[in-house]
């Protein structure tokens, strides 16, 4: 998402916080611009992330808060739970869960390749839906370690994760999937 798109969505509202899933370039490279555009913005990241190395060049260190996984934070009257990401390419990755809306912000997890021009479409707006092959192709590319993963072990952890967390919607890598888990 470009800064212009972000500003358009915010429509003049000044954001006060960023909940960073992880520090990989596609997910954090505009953090300096965000920080410079909205001074004083607070950034919450996992304690496992080396934020004083990875983020300090982009955001003043006193605006970064390291949060332990499984911590519930209250943000302007609304609870958000920061979770250790199940699917990740960096140890310090976190997923963010909103108990009120039951939305899981899953970072790199559960992405899929979509047709050109469908970047901003909700899953319910895709006439063809999302095929298993689209998820499969993305995950094999994003998580190259899957070649060594035993499916039953991973699926067991995945089942356990969703059994403990009522998720209605997934917000993944820039696309909101309006699908029930």
């Amino acid at each position, binding site marked *: 998402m470009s800064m212009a798109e972000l500003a358009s969505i915010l429509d003049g509202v000044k954001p006060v916080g960023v909940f960073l899933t992880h520090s990989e370039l596609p997910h954090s490279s505009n953090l300096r611009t965000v920080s410079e555009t909205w001074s004083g913005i607070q950034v919450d990241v996992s304690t496992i992330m080396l934020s004083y190395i990875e983020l300090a060049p982009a955001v003043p260190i006193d605006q970064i808060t390291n949060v332990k996984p499984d911590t519930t934070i209250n943000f302007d009257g609304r609870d958000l739970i920061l979770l250790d990401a199940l699917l*990740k390419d960096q140890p310090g990755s976190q997923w963010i869960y909103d108990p009120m809306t039951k939305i899981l912000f899953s970072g790199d997890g559960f992405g899929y390749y979509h047709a050109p021009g469908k970047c901003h479409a909700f899953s319910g707006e895709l006439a063809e839906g999302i095929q298993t092959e689209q998820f499969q192709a993305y995950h094999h590319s994003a*998580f190259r*370690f899957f070649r*060594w*993963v*035993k499916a039953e*072990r991973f699926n067991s*952890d995945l089942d356990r994760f969703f059994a403990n967390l009522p998720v209605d919607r997934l917000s993944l890598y820039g696309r909101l999937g309006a699908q029930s888990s």
Partner: protein
Amino acid sequence: MPICPWTGFLFTADWGHNLHEPACGQCFQFLDEMLAGDYTTDLLVDDIKVNAWYQFPWLAWTEPEELASAVTDLFQGYQVNIFAPSHGNVIRKDAARYVDQLAEGMRQASDMAVKR
């Protein structure tokens, strides 16, 4: 992992690194120089295990023997002479001599990861 086919230089990024002591000037030593001191190949196996276990949580879903075989296969597929992890001492020659330690480290890392 980029490899140079002319020199056999394999850059392994986050994989296969050993612990060393920056305060003792060990950052720029080669592994053979470390081994000439107090460092041992047993410690190398342990370091590879612990670092992989921390860096790669997905090891919990793997099979130890398959991981070890993947390392062996890598060295059979490429003529690796120089082994350069981002965070460890570089193996500057005959890197294939260390394949057993690398494979064993990954076997132990996979075995140590939580299996449910």
